[in-house]
């Protein structure tokens, strides 16, 4: 909200290397145009129904697999002790990571007054909510007795039993549920003014009633806006440590264990960076097609993509250096178990996974040093797919090789996912995209109110526009 734009004109809207705070939407002239264009995107199309159908189908595959697994037992998955965690935990961490970009964009960049967040944050935040929604399923899926999951939640019960609060898994429960609650609230709060817009533009009485309820009777009054702004600020201030803590806690699942390859103090920052990295990639995967199909190029401009690309490049460098620090520490620690594991990581039975990880997460993102590629949506889209792949394999490399080569050589083993694991992987994507597709056709995927905020207001001839904002602002 508070990203007040400094005066600036860029007729082509293509000027490279704009300071991200200065990103403007020259092609967006008036409030009415915003309403019209954004609300225009909400009309369902055949393509959309096709996508939704596909997503639901994938989700059903996952659901079927879950039923099957609950009936027979977890043995239907590819676990091969001592590899007791596999695709489920990998995918869990993957989706949690995806979630982080949204909160980063909507909260942290908000605190940092980064202008380029304005038009993409809504999509990113929705992505966050649905990604966490997806991730939240996997801890339940992966336990042996899912029907007992509620034992991880502290509540008064006749067994007089409580969770064991020293366990990272309980921290997970708290972190993930808090994260889901807060980010959902955050998304919804941001949506209220836009829903009010929909409410007032809606002609269909039924939909209007629904919007009316959802908008909670929002009236755009100055009083509402005032508290709204403060609250939004504080929520952002809360979400910022939250987003950092959540993936740190997830990384504790590994770092708190003494398993070689897990027991590392570098994990929290390393995981957070990786999460933001993968999250931004997913933002591209989502926003680039949308912007193309719905002709929103003048909202999500190349300047926006450029700015996000810089973030991706930075996080990629962080993650890359983390990889090398791990190897260095293994060598420096002089712990044979550790050293053997890391040797096995790159040259052992899963060398290919490690190299996929290194290629996708370190080498390919280097291309973003070139401004041309940073401003090339096609390349960014392709790259985003590679990064998603790479980040999934990063988690694979962390989970599986570590467990398969632990202290006890007699118990060294192999691991191969089964068709059930794969069904869950597919199902998770189906589940995620089902929600996302439903979202983008019901609610504005670009924040109407915020876009209005950064386009200069209509003024009477007497005072020049900048005077107004200068006289009003700061």
């Amino acid at each position, binding site marked *: 909200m508070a990203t007040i734009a400094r005066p600036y004109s860029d007729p082509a809207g293509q000027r490279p290397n704009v300071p991200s705070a200065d990103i403007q939407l020259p092609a967006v002239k008036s409030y009415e145009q915003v309403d019209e264009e954004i609300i225009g995107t909400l009309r369902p199309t055949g393509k959309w129904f096709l996508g939704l159908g596909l997503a639901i189908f994938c989700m059903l595959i996952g659901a079927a697999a879950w039923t099957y697994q609950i009936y027979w037992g977890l043995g239907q998955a590819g676990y091969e002790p001592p590899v*007791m965690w596999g695709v489920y935990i990998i995918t869990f961490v993957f989706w949690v990571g995806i979630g982080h970009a949204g909160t980063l964009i909507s909260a942290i960049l908000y605190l940092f007054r980064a202008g380029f967040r304005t038009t993409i944050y809504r999509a990113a935040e929705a992505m966050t909510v649905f990604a966490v929604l997806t991730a939240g399923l996997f801890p339940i899926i992966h336990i042996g007795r899912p029907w007992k999951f509620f034992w991880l939640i502290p509540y008064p019960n006749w067994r007089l039993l409580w969770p064991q609060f020293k366990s990272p898994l309980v921290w997970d429960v708290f972190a993930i549920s808090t994260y889901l609650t807060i980010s959902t609230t955050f998304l919804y709060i941001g949506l209220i003014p836009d829903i009010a817009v929909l409410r007032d533009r809606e002609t269909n009485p039924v939909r209007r009633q629904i919007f009316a309820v959802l908008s909670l009777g929002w009236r755009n009054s100055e009083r509402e806006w005032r508290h709204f702004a403060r609250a939004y600020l504080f929520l952002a201030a809360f979400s910022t440590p939250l987003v950092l803590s959540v993936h740190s806690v997830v990384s504790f699942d590994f770092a708190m264990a003494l398993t070689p390859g897990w027991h590392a103090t570098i994990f929290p920052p390393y995981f957070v960076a990786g999460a933001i990295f993968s999250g931004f990639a997913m933002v591209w995967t989502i926003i680039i097609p949308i912007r193309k199909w719905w002709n929103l190029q003048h909202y999500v401009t190349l300047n926006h993509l450029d700015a996000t690309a810089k973030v991706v490049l930075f996080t990629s460098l962080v993650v890359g250096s983390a990889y090398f620090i791990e190897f260095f520490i293994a060598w420096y620690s002089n712990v044979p178990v550790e050293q053997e594991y890391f040797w096995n990581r790159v040259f052992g039975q899963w060398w290919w996974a490690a190299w996929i990880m290194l290629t996708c997460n370190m080498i390919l993102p280097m291309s973003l040093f070139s401004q041309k590629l940073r401003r090339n949506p096609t390349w960014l889209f392709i790259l985003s797919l590679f990064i998603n792949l790479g980040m999934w394999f990063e988690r694979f490399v962390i989970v599986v090789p570590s467990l398969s080569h632990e202290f006890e050589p007699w118990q060294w083993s192999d691991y191969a996912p089964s068709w059930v694991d794969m069904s869950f992987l597919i199902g998770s994507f189906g589940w995620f995209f089902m929600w996302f597709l439903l979202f983008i056709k019901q609610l504005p995927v670009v924040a109407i109110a915020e876009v209005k905020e950064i386009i200069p207001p209509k003024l009477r001839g007497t005072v020049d526009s900048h005077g107004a904002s200068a006289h009003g602002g700061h």
Partner: protein
Amino acid sequence: MSTTSGSSGLKRREFLKVLGATGAAAGTVGCSSDSVERLIPYLNHPDQTVPGVSNYYATTCRECAAGCGVIAEVRDGRAIKLEGNPAHPLNQGAICSKGQAALQGLYNPDRFRGPMMREGERLVPITWDRALQELNTRLDQAGPALANGVFINQHESGSFPVVLDQWLATRGIPGHLSYDADLNLGTIAAHRQAYGVAWPTIDFTQARLIVSVGADFLDDWGAAVPQQLNFADARAQLQNAPRFVYVGPRRSLTGLNADQWIPCRPGSELAIMQALGGTGTASIAQAAEAAGVEPTLLQGLADELRGAGRSMILAGTRGADAMEVALAAAALNQALGNVGVTILPGSPATAFERAASYADVRGVVEQMASGQVPVFFVRGANPAFTTPPALGFAAAMARVPFKVSFSSYPDETTLLCDLILPDHHALESWGDAQPVPGLIGLQQPTMDPVFNTRPTADLLLLLTGGGALSAAPLAISGATSPGVEVPGAAALGSQVVPAPAPGAVTTTPREHLYRDWLIGRIPGGAAALTSALQTGLIAGNVGQSAAAVRPAPAPVAALPAIAQTEGDFFFHIYPSPLLGTGSGANKPWLQELADPVSKIAWQTWIEIHPTRAWDMGIDNGDLVTITTGTGSVTAPAYLYLGIHPDTVAMPLGRGHTAYGRYAAGIGVNPLIAVPAAEDAQSGGLAYSVTKCRVTKTGGFDDLVTTEGSARQHGRGIAQAMTVAELMAPVTDDHGHDIPGVPSYEPLPGLRSPVAADAQGELADPDSKDKGMYDPQHWSKMASRRWAMTIDLARCTGCSACVTACYAENNIPTVGAPWQGRATSPLTWDERPGANIVKGREMTWIRIERYFEGGEDYGSNFDTRFAPMLCQHCGNAPCEPVCPVYATYHSPDGLNVQVYNRCVGTRYCSNNCPYKVRYFNWFGYGEPNRRQYAFPEPLNWQLNPDVTVRGKGVMEKCTFCVQRIREAEHRAVAEGRLVEADEFTTACAQACPSRAIVFGDAADATWSVAQLATDRRAYHVFGDLSTYTAVVYLKSIIHPGPATPVQA
């Protein structure tokens, strides 16, 4: 409720259901049936059982010929556990895996439910009346031709052979063949010739040097358990322990326990013996040439032998010259003055006397093939499987008009029979055995028959009219049995039922003809038997059978030496140490138990030396075909360091075509590729008689192995020290770096239940709510620290502890073909051991077998066995990661796993450095799942004190907490504290090496407390500060003069 409980539907409650009827009426399953109720138990529950409290019955193990004494724990009318009988001279309380698995023979789901008769192709159930009538009539029809009748009985000592022969005599049938394919007849014959007894006692403790030429005295050569006990004692002498050199083509379990291995080609043993003795023709050089080994090794051995003083040479080859080799060994022992010192013919084991030879069986086959044999009986033995198919036993049998089987199981031989009169299991019936001269081991029923079977002995007496056979009474030496008098002893006498009138066929299933017959032959009668049953032992000797001996079979020409046969590899076959020649294959515990050497289960493998294998492009799991002049077998290859490069080896025991769901179609039978050859002198079946061609078939089959890496990677799991290190003086400053000092600091972890105590956490008077962890808490639980020591110098890797754990803790077997996972929505992985290929075996205690040295693929490598179980850490890494307190540290120092609280995150296993936690991937305990591990009536064996785990929960070693609690209950009832060494865990109880000791390490009066401070003691991964409660004692390396062995 299986979904809401950590356990599944059946188990303890079944017992309570039974309980409702226990007192209620005879006939229902329970202790109250005539045959069991009035037996005198071993412990102090004389006359009646108390529901929920076990009775203990002393009886005799019939799983092998040795006849060890066992004690059956019976709960509410069901035998649930077998343990060694401490009073028995042979096994002294120990018991092997085979013995443990007798229970799965008793409750085997594939046992015959009752008598069967052949109608056309099918066997159909009939009544006992009909069956006996049929038998009588057919025998009467046969008339005088019965002089050619044949009865093959599983070899056993005791009175039954006498009864049998006498019955046969009444029918004019010659004496029975007492055949056991597991016996090493070459050695037995040689012993008879050299020492006059079938099996002298071998005293390892007296020797300074043990030389074994293919004599696998820890696997199947002789009576394994007593030999192992004695061998372990010898090794426990540490610096005074004998050095052990093993000569043979393959390092068996025995060979792996040797300090040095001299690999030789099969068939070259005789030359080596002659060379060693300097007798005969062969020189060292020739012997080395024949053996394909460095002459220096043999020379070194010869020199060592001369210098050793007290030594022993044991020979147990299975070639065509087996007896010659054994005789040479005997001669060498004579020459070296070992007889009477380490080899004691004076106190023999009598179990192997009067065993029929393979030659006798061949004679029978020839006789049957000629069509003269009118009737063929078989009981227990399974010659159709244990003899090479080349012999054509089945074909010959087909020429016999009337074939009767008394076996309980649908094995290959029995399925060829026309009439099946299933015998009781040994645990259901009376009997006796002669383990050593002058002492008789008694066998008594421990429970009601599971099925509608009838003891053969009763039938025989019945068929001949009861008392008719009371000749040749037991020669009682006058000594009374060591038993304790208990009230109610006279009750037994009153139970003696009068024998029925001659010829009468009564149908009441509960006669005790044989029991009464036995009573009738014991001076003192019922009372004497009653008191003797306290220990299951009575002084005396079993009378000899005075039966007509069968005509000796025509001798065969001596075979060509194996080296002359055609082929590029020597083909070596050996009985499996677990399955023998096949009798164990129908017991899931034994199928599931990984072979002590190869660590492979549910599968037959081909051992081949790595260097030769890689030359042929063969690697582990590649399918390999072995072709001989006789036939060919295909199996996955197992690259094994411990085999002579010119040799390939295969284990016997698997490859059944029948014998029940757990045996049929699992593995291959190497006998297919062996000619029906025998040792011309001893008449023993010769296994290693031919070379073979080895070809890579091209296919691949995952090895069903429990082994991850065979190397320790310097992680010090199974540690050893040299004698020099052991003798090094102890300097006590920062001692743990100095050899010979307990190599660990965190002793506090042993002194107090919670290692944190050592760190002052709970010792802090201000720390709140220590509850039961407070040493001041009235229960004084916090003063105990249950712990265990494992002496690696004693452990031989025999894996008896593993089976004991399965039996005690209701551990499911997961390797059966129907227990695998789905490979697609429609197909299942139905390979035997599919779950084990995925590493999902549930062995709470496992034996890790690590190789040291031999990186050059030479013969000079050392083997370390390390039993690995939950270490019950004082600082357990598994505990703090559990989100629901499903695992925590109990005040008496146990790392507890609460099944019904577990939600199955498996985080604990990830965080366990020892990887001793096991997960229920499927509903192994749920009858309505295909992976169900206890098909009726196997579930009768389940221990009612231990929860059967449902799917989705973690489980692990509990230090037999149910036994701890039971002891506490007993102590409280008697108003005292648990006394030192009052009880022990199942693994420690069974261990035939006495390597495992359990107890309270915080109380110096327990023996474990002293052992834990032994100089050899160390913690595995002690540097992780887990404060483990399991303390290992380093094994000792005995380097030979010629051979450097790395520490």
